[in-house]
């Protein structure tokens, strides 16, 4: 008999099919580079919910997540809710690349705590044209620091002084990962993505969105993960190494986009879902912090902790999917948990489709849940790393 685990959020449900994301165009490659991403996210959520036949009037709370500052961010969820078409209360949260998963957990807690019946989770980011500005920094020798939000932070962990990329190289060396495996793994991830795309799977997750300019004229359609091209092991092998095992091909790329799902009471889920017979619950989550500059090994550690706490094993998982900014992440995970990396990340993963930060893990969750429904249900493991050498993991159950 398969193991079962009780949910930490037994009253919260994710209604099947009331979700969706935008496509994630690579940074600077689409009209998304020019918009207020908070406004875009709000309007897109209304649109996606309309396509899914969910009136947003059912929502009573909104949790938004993003990591790159946007104009009028001070007004957080209320601003986005205004663009969505309902004056909802709510808040903004962020946890770097874990934002998209943590927001789901917070929404489940909001419902479980009895505070809300239907919570919108809406994560988004625009890495393109990120804000630039100055910070008065009286202790710095220049007194004032000029900042460029996205790239400054990618390149510099203030608590270690290292970059994210350096942490990947560091972990590859520590776990004696070979370049050959990394190239092979990456090529396989691309195959998985294009298989998912060709099968029509992607169309069930991502909704094309037509943008308008200020005159109300068409500005273009966000209808593809632009920038993603087929790549084979040979081409990957030929790439110059930036650090151990890390080339421009074996890491993700910055992107723009949004993703949304709902967390509700069981009753509301039945009312809103187009397949009310499907019940999706969040079982539990875990987080760890790895040693300094060891970010890619943190997710595996979080999964180990989560399995220990829930009493489940990797064998119990129907779907396994992660946020893998570096191919090294998957190789290390595979090695520490003894789990074949070929068995995970079907239909695509952030290594391939890109990384707009806030919404990345929300899209991973949506894809993982869709896949689990295709498989007839089961446990779904979603995990990923985040700035500060953090790893986060969560298990969902699809019945």
């Amino acid at each position, binding site marked *: 008999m398969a193991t079962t685990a009780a949910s930490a959020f037994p009253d919260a449900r994710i209604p099947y099919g009331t979700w969706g994301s935008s496509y994630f165009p690579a940074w600077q490659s689409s009209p998304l580079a020019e*918009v*207020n991403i908070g*406004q*875009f996210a709000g*309007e*897109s959520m*209304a*649109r996606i*919910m*309309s*396509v899914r036949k*969910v*009136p*947003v*009037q059912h929502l009573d709370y909104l949790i938004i997540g993003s990591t790159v500052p946007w104009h009028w961010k001070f007004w957080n969820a209320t601003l986005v809710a*205004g*663009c969505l*078409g309902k*004056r909802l209360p709510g808040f903004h949260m962020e946890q770097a690349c874990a934002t998209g998963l943590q927001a789901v957990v917070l929404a489940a807690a909001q419902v479980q705590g009895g505070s809300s019946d239907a919570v919108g989770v809406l994560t988004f980011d625009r890495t393109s044209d990120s804000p630039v500005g100055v910070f008065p920094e009286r202790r710095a020798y220049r007194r004032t620091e000029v900042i460029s939000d996205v790239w400054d932070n990618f390149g510099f962990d203030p608590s270690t002084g290292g970059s994210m990329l350096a942490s990947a190289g560091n972990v590859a060396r520590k776990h004696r990962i070979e370049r050959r495996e990394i190239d092979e793994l990456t090529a396989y991830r691309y195959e998985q993505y294009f298989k998912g795309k060709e099968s029509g799977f992607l169309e069930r997750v991502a909704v094309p*969105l*037509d*943008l*308008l300019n*200020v005159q*109300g004229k*068409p500005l273009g359609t966000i209808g593809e993960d632009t920038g993603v091209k087929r790549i084979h092991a040979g081409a990957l092998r030929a790439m110059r190494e930036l650090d151990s095992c890390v080339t421009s091909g074996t890491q993700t790329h910055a992107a723009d986009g949004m993703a949304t799902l709902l967390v509700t009471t069981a009753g509301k889920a039945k009312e809103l879902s187009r397949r009310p017979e499907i019940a999706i619950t969040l079982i539990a989550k875990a987080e760890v912090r790895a040693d300094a500059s060891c970010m890619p090994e943190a997710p595996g550690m979080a999964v180990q902790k989560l399995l220990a706490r829930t009493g489940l094993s990797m064998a119990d998982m129907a779907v396994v999917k992660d946020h893998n900014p570096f191919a090294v992440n998957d190789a290390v995970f595979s090695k520490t948990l003894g789990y074949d990396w070929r068995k995970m990340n079907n239909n695509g993963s952030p290594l391939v489709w890109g990384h707009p930060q806030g919404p990345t893990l929300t899209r991973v969750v949506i894809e993982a849940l869709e896949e689990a429904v295709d498989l007839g249900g089961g446990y779904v493991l979603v995990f990923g790393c985040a700035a500060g050498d953090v790893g986060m993991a969560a298990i969902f159950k699809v019945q």
Partner: protein
Amino acid sequence: MASVTTPSTATGDPRSAQGNSANGGAVRAMRPGTLGALGLGTVLDIFSKGRLPVRADELVDQVFGPREARGAMVISGACGVVGAGKVMQFASRLLPYGVPVIALDLPGANDGVQQQFDGLVKSFGRDTANAIMNNVIRLNYDGTSLPKELERYRPKLLLEAIPEKLELKKAHYALFRNAFPGIHIWSVTSGFPSAQLGVDIAHPSFPHQINKVFEIVEARPTPHTQLLWALGLVPMKVGDHWSFVLDVFFCGLLQATLQFCRHTNTPYWKADKYIRKLIGPNPFRAHDVIGAKGANYLTWSCLHHLGEAYGPLFTPEEALTARMRSGQAWYPPDHFRPLVNWSLDAEQEQALEAIVEGALLQMTSIVLHEQRADLPTMNAIGELCAQFSNGILARARRMGPERIAHQVGAYHRLFPAAAGTTWYPDTFMNMAEGAWTQLYVNAEHNGKAGVITISRESYNDDVDAELNRAIDWLLGQGIHRVILTGDFHLATQLVGADTLAFHPALSDEREGERISLAWSRTARRLHHDFRASVGFIHGKRCMGGMLELMMHCHQLVAVEDTLLAMPEVTIPVLPGMEGCHWPFRKADAEGRKKLLRLVLEGRPVKAADASGWLVDHAGTLENAVRTAWQVMEQDAAALKPRPFAEGPVETPDAAEAGLAPVDGPLKEARAAIARCVAEACNAPVDLALTVQARHSAAFMTGSLCRKGRLGSDYDKMMKH
């Protein structure tokens, strides 16, 4: 079809008393005319008596007293949205009669009157604008006691335009009645019935400085209402019910649209586009333009009271209630101009139609059941005051009872609460009879001569069908002499073809040809089917297709200062109702040059200046009315028709006609019209029909037309 005798009643009851024409014969009509409800008789009376039923100067004396002791009109709430507009409208119209307008408001009110001045200058020029402003006397008061000074002006008529609060209004009337016992009071209220307020209603329609329509509630016709008519305004008699007629539809449409938005998440700005295409107006934009704070309150208030009186069909949507409280506009602010576009799938499109049509028609059934107005009036209110592209009754008539029941049913499935409100499907059961068949065109006769009246400013298939029925009816009644005219009431001008009717023809040449042929054939009946026909032109202007229609009468008689024009070239389209050859067949060589200039330049000409080549006679209104009637009476002195050439006629070329050369699209459009004129005139009249139709249809599918006003209006409306 059954006929009725007039004068008519407001409710459209066909069994009304028998009317008498000037020569003693009973007037028979297809349906009661709308003037009857105001005590103004029939249009046939106007012709047979040779004058209008009432005169403004006499009514002014009656309402405001004789010139030596003239009283004043008071408008309270004069600085508000309604008050300020009406101050301007009445000050300008009463100026010639020496009736001052007292603009009364609270001391702290925004200066709404002053803000109107620029508009006045634009419409009247600085001198007249100054004179109008001089006719406005502005008084402040504290809201509890009237200013002493007021007495000096002898107030005779109060138009109350203060906030929509029942008790406030009632206290206001008491104040005036105490001070000025005989004063006649009108409330502009959007929703409170006269029975609640204790005064008559003159409910105006936005934009207040220019919109001429007033919904009138009064027990019997009053000189005050007749004065509105005599001043060129459009009073319409309606029943004394919550929100009368206009605001049931205006507010009801917002309500239905909000339900659609709630159902599908469609943002308001986009829903406006769908409603524009489906019904005509932009409900959300309209509220923002009127001023969201005030308009949201008024719409909420109307719906709230309707909801209490009739049920949840009207209970204001939550989003409206919230915006009523906050005064927030419906469109996003400029810094949030819409970013993500919207489209509807088939299911949502059906829902849109079901919700909007279902709700509106359920509301219509209530208005019909209560006989809130005669049918043509009820239908016109949507078109004249709420931008409906087709009146709600014309829409219902096209749909038929089955489709209506289907849509209301579909609406109730989506919004079950609305099923808890009464709905009277039976009100749509007799749409093939009586006034239902003649919403826009009426016919009256006295046994010898008839009058066909058109009450829609623009021509479309509905008008065409009704006109044919009117002709058939007169012929069936043995009437062979006819005057075709505007209705002296709902249509204050005849602007031409309804360009909405041309939209399908932009991509379908056969449709263009069908319209042109069908409408021209109807027009030709005025020439062929009667022994004598007179096109009677009055009002502000007569243009395009309406002028072409009139031209088909044996004679054209016009009021001298009415403007005539063939503006097709400026759109551009080609005149499609035989304007390119018909009038040429009656004109001499000089006249044909003028006609060519008329169609190629598109500029208006005063009827007085078109005598002899376009119109047969132009004179003052009374003179023109009498001249037309002489033809009906076969008076020996009656105007004789100009000869009509059935064979080919020569046309001047553009240079001969003295046209100034132009460039660009106008040049191309002119050339196309000139070719049509040459070919159609060169053909015998029988063949000219198809020549003209083909030219007109082919032009509409071409790129020049597509890039012009018609094409871009179409694109704006259809493309999302």
